[in-house]
C-alpha cells in the first residue's frame, strides 16, 4: 500500500530485531476473544485515481456553476490564489501545534500577526489564536462573562444567528446558566425596551450581533451604556467579517466574538470555519484557547511562543477556562494571508463593493425592514411562499435567498438575501425580474 513505506523485507528485519515471528505477535496483549477474525466490512483500498473519480462523482451531484444569493453565516467571497499557494506548503499544512517554539517560529509568527490584525479590525486590545467557529466562539464568550462577573445569567438578542443561539443553549444547559432571549422591534433591530426589561444585577453578559442576522446594523454605542449600567458585559458578535472593512468596529464591547469564514475560507458545506475572540487587556487571563506571545531567546533575539498556557486544559485540567485544545491554525493562516493581500485599502474597497452590490439588488425588491444594512437584507414575497420564487430562480441557475420561516415563524413569507462582490449585475437583474413576475401574479390572485 502506497502510504506504508516498509517492504516485507523491512518488516522481517524489524521483527527479527524484536525476536518475533510475525506482526500478529504484536497484538498478543489484546484478549483473543476480542481480536477480529475477519477484515472489516469495507471495500478494498482504492487507488488515487479511483478516489478522485469517486469524489468527482459526488461533487457533480452538488450545485455547480450556480449564482448564489445565500448568506446567513456563510458567505461567498473571492479567494485569492496566493492563499492556497501558502497553506499548501508542507511546512504549514503538515506541521504540529507550536509547543516547541524553536522549530515553529513560522506558525507562531503568523499567529502573532493574526492576533494583531483581529485587534486592529475589531477595536479590541487582545485576541486569541482562534476558536473552532463563530458559534462556539460566542459560547466561550458567554462563559467568559460568567467567570468575570461571577454572575450566572445570559441575555441574547433574537437577531443573533439562530444556530449560534442553539449552540449556546446546548452548552449552558448543564452549567446552571439560564439564557433568555431579547426580542427585536418592528425595525428588525434589538428592542431596547425588551432589553431594559430583562436586564438586572444577575445578568453576566448581553450578546448582540452586528450586522445582525437580518443584515441590519445594531446601535452598539447606545446599547453599551445600558448594559454596563447593569454591571453586565457586552458581547458583540459578527458573522460577516468583510463588514469590518467599512463599518465602525464595536469598540464599546467588552468581548467581541465572530466568524472569519469570509476571509478566504471556502463555504465547504458548513465547515471547517474559524472563530475569533477578542477582548480588553484586563480580561486576558480569562480567555480560552491558545495565545501567542512575544519574547526573546537566550541571545536576546525576538521570538514568539505559546503563552499563558496555565489557563488551558493540559495544565489546569478540571479548572481550565475551557476544554478546548485545538485552534484553527491553518484557517487562521488563510485569513491572515487574505488580510495581508487585501490590506488596509483593499479590505475597505472590498466592503464598499459588497455594500454597492447589495444595495443595488435591494433597491429593486420589497424590503421588510428599514434601517441601515451591509450586504444582507430581508425581503417579503408578497404572500407567495419563498420556495416557489426560489424554484423559478433555480431554473435560471440561481440559488435564491434563505426562507426565514424555519427560524422565525413570524416571518413566514420572507427571505434573507445576500449580495457580495462576486454577485453579477445580470444575475441580480434576473432575481428582481423573477420577484416582480411571481409576486405580482400572486398579488393579482393569479397562478
Amino acid at each position, binding site marked *: *500500500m502506497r*502510504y*506504508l513505506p*516498509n517492504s516485507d523485507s*523491512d518488516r522481517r528485519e524489524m521483527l527479527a*530485531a524484536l525476536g518475533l515471528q510475525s*506482526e500478529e505477535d*504484536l497484538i498478543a496483549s489484546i484478549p483473543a476473544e*476480542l481480536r*477480529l477474525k475477519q477484515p472489516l466490512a469495507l471495500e478494498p*483500498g482504492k487507488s488515487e485515481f479511483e478516489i478522485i473519480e469517486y*469524489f468527482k462523482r459526488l461533487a457533480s451531484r452538488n*450545485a*455547480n456553476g450556480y449564482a448564489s444569493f445565500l448568506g446567513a453565516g456563510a458567505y*461567498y467571497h473571492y479567494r485569492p490564489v496566493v492563499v492556497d499557494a*501558502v*497553506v499548501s506548503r508542507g*511546512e*504549514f499544512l*503538515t506541521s*504540529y*501545534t507550536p509547543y516547541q517554539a*524553536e*522549530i515553529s517560529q*513560522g506558525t507562531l509568527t*503568523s499567529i*502573532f*500577526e493574526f492576533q494583531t490584525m483581529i485587534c486592529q479590525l475589531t477595536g479590541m*486590545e487582545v485576541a486569541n*489564536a482562534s476558536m473552532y*467557529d463563530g*458559534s*462556539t466562539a460566542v459560547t466561550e464568550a458567554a462563559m467568559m462573562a460568567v467567570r468575570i462577573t461571577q454572575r450566572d445569567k445570559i441575555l441574547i438578542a433574537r437577531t443573533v444567528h439562530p444556530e449560534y443561539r442553539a449552540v449556546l443553549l446546548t452548552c449552558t444547559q448543564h452549567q446552571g446558566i439560564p439564557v433568555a432571549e431579547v426580542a427585536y422591534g418592528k425595525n428588525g433591530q434589538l428592542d431596547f425596551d425588551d432589553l431594559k426589561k430583562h436586564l438586572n444585577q444577575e445578568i453576566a453578559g448581553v450578546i448582540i450581533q452586528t450586522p445582525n442576522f437580518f443584515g441590519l446594523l445594531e446601535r452598539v454605542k447606545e446599547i453599551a451604556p445600558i448594559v454596563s449600567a447593569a454591571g453586565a458585559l457586552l458581547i458583540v458578535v459578527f458573522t460577516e467579517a468583510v463588514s469590518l*472593512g467599512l*463599518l*465602525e468596529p464595536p469598540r464599546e464591547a467588552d468581548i467581541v466574538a465572530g466568524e472569519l469564514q469570509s476571509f478566504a475560507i*471556502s463555504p465547504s458545506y*458548513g*465547515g*471547517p470555519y*474559524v472563530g475569533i475572540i477578542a477582548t480588553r487587556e484586563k480580561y486576558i487571563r480569562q480567555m480560552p484557547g491558545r495565545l501567542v*506571545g*512575544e*519574547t526573546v*531567546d537566550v*541571545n536576546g533575539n525576538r521570538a514568539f511562543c505559546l*503563552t499563558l498556557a496555565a489557563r*488551558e486544559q493540559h495544565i489546569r*485540567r*478540571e*479548572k481550565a477556562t*475551557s476544554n478546548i*485544545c485545538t485552534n484553527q491554525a491553518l484557517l487562521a493562516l488563510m485569513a491572515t494571508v487574505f*488580510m*495581508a*493581500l487585501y490590506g488596509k*485599502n483593499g479590505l475597505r474597497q472590498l466592503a464598499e463593493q459588497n455594500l454597492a452590490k447589495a444595495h443595488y439588488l435591494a433597491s429593486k425588491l420589497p424590503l421588510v425592514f428599514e434601517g*441601515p444594512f451591509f450586504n444582507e437584507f430581508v425581503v417579503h414575497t408578497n404572500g407567495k411562499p419563498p420556495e416557489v420564487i426560489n424554484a423559478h430562480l*433555480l431554473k435560471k441557475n440561481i440559488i435564491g435567498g434563505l426562507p426565514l420561516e424555519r427560524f422565525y415563524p413570524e416571518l413566514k413569507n420572507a427571505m434573507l438575501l445576500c449580495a457580495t*462582490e462576486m454577485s453579477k449585475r445580470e444575475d441580480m437583474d434576473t432575481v428582481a425580474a423573477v420577484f416582480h413576475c411571481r409576486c405580482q401574479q400572486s398579488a393579482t390572485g393569479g397562478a
Partner: protein
Amino acid sequence: MIQKVSPHIVQNEPLLFERSTPGKCGCELPPLDVPPVDAQQVLGKENVRDEIEDFPEISELEVLRHFTRLSSWNYGIDLGLYPLGSCTMKYNPRVNEVVARLEGLAWAHPYQPEELSQGAMEVIAMLEQALAEITGMDAVTLQPAAGAHGEFTGILMIRALLESRGGPRKKILVPDSAHGTNPATAAMIGYTVENIRSNERGMVDLEALAKAANEDVAALMITNPNTLGIFEENIQKICAILHDCGGLVYMDGANMNALAGIVRPGDFGIDVMHLNLHKTFSTPHGGGGPGAGAVAVAKSLTPFLPAPRLKREGDRWVWNYDLPQSVGRVRAFYGNFGVLVRALAYVLAHGNGIRQATLDALLNANYVRAALEPYYDIAYPSPTMHECVFSDDRQAKKGVRTGDIAKRLIDYGFHPYTVSFPLIVRGALMIEPTETESKRELDLFIDAMISIAKEVEENPELVKKAPYSTRTRRVDEVTAARRPIVRWRRNENRTPQQAQDVKEASSSQVTA
C-alpha cells in the same frame, strides 16, 4: 554524530506591519458593474470607520515571500518524523487536499437546497458508516469540531441518557493517566471529577475502580490503549463494573491508530467514544487545527445524538430535525465538512486493508522501544502497542530532564517527542512513530536518541543548553507569561510599562 541535518542559510523576515508601506495592495477587485453607493449616506456617518489603523499594505509578491520565508522556519511531516505520542503524526495524503477542493464540495453552501447537496450529504453518510464499522458502534455523528468538542458531545449525551433514566448522577471517574481535556470536559458539563489510580503495570486499578463505582458515578472516561500505549487487558471487566452500577463508559479514541482493523471498541463494551480525524484518519494538523471529532455511540445513546441527522427518503438524503431526545446542536451547520472529505478519502485509500496500517504502527513503535530500552528507563514493563513511554530518571541523575533531551533532539533534525505527559510518569518521553515512517527514518531517530543518551553521560551541559542550530535558541517562556505581549504595536504606541518590560527582558537574557 548528527546525520539527518546540516546547517543552511534561512531567510530573515520582519512582521507584516514592519514591511508595510502606505499605498500598496496585494489584491485587486474587478470594477463595479453596479453604481457605487456613499457609505456615509447609506449607513450613517457614525457607522463608517476611519481607516484600519496600522493594518498592513503590501504587494502580492511581498506577501508570498513573507509567508514562504516564515514556512521555512517550521518543521512538518513532509520534512520528517514527528515522534509525538498520542498525536499520530502520519502522512497527510495529498489526494485528500485535491478532493476537498473540488468545486462542488468546496463551494457548497450549508443552506443550499437539499436536492443540490446530495453529494455532500453522501460524503457525510459514507464516513459515518465507515467509522461505525471500524469502531463497532451503532451510530456516528460528525458534528463536533475537534476531539475535545467530541468529548463534550459524548458526555452531554451520557448526561441526557441518565436524566431520562431518573437522574444525571454526580461524578465522572478519570484515570490519573488521562489527557487534560477529559477532566476539563467533565467539569464543563456539571460533573465533579474523581481520579482513579493506575496499578504498577500502568493499567486502571480494578480494585480502586470497583470501590469508586457507585450510583453517584455517571461514567468512566478511559483511553484504550491508554496514554502509556498499554492495552487495558481488563477492559471488559472495567466496562462491566460501570454497567453494573448503572454508569456508562466513554472512550477517548485518540489512540485508535492501535486498534483499527484489529479490535473494535463496540465489541468490548464502550458506550460512546470520540475519534480524532486529524490523528488516525490522516487529516492535516495545519499547525494546530482544524481537526474534527467524530463521536460514535452504542444503541442506547442513539436517540440523543446532536441534530440534525441524515435520513434516507427514497433515493435521497434529507436532514432530519425531528429528534425529540437530541442534546441539540453543538455547533452551527453540519460539521467540519472539509475535514470529513479528507478523512473519507483516507478510509477509501485503505479500505479493509487498514489492518496492515495498524500492524505496521505497532511494529514501528515496538522496534523503537526495543532499541531505546538499553538507554532510557521504560516507564512500565507491560507490552505496548503503537506508542511507548520512557522516563528521564536515568538522565535526571546527571541533571538532564526530558525537556532538555527533547531540545537536543531538534539539533539532530527531528521534532521532539511528547514531553512530560502522561503525568503519572516522572519526566515522561512519549514516542509514537506511526505506520508511515520507514525503517530508515526510524534508524536515524534511534541513532539520534542513543547519541544524546551518550552526550548526557559525557557532557550534560551540552544537552541542557540545546538547541544550537535553530533560528532561535531556547525561548524565554517565563517572560512571555510574566509580561504577556500578544499583539504588535508601533513603538510609539507601546505603554511605558511594555517598553520597559521588553527592554528588561532583552537585557536580562543577553547577560545570562
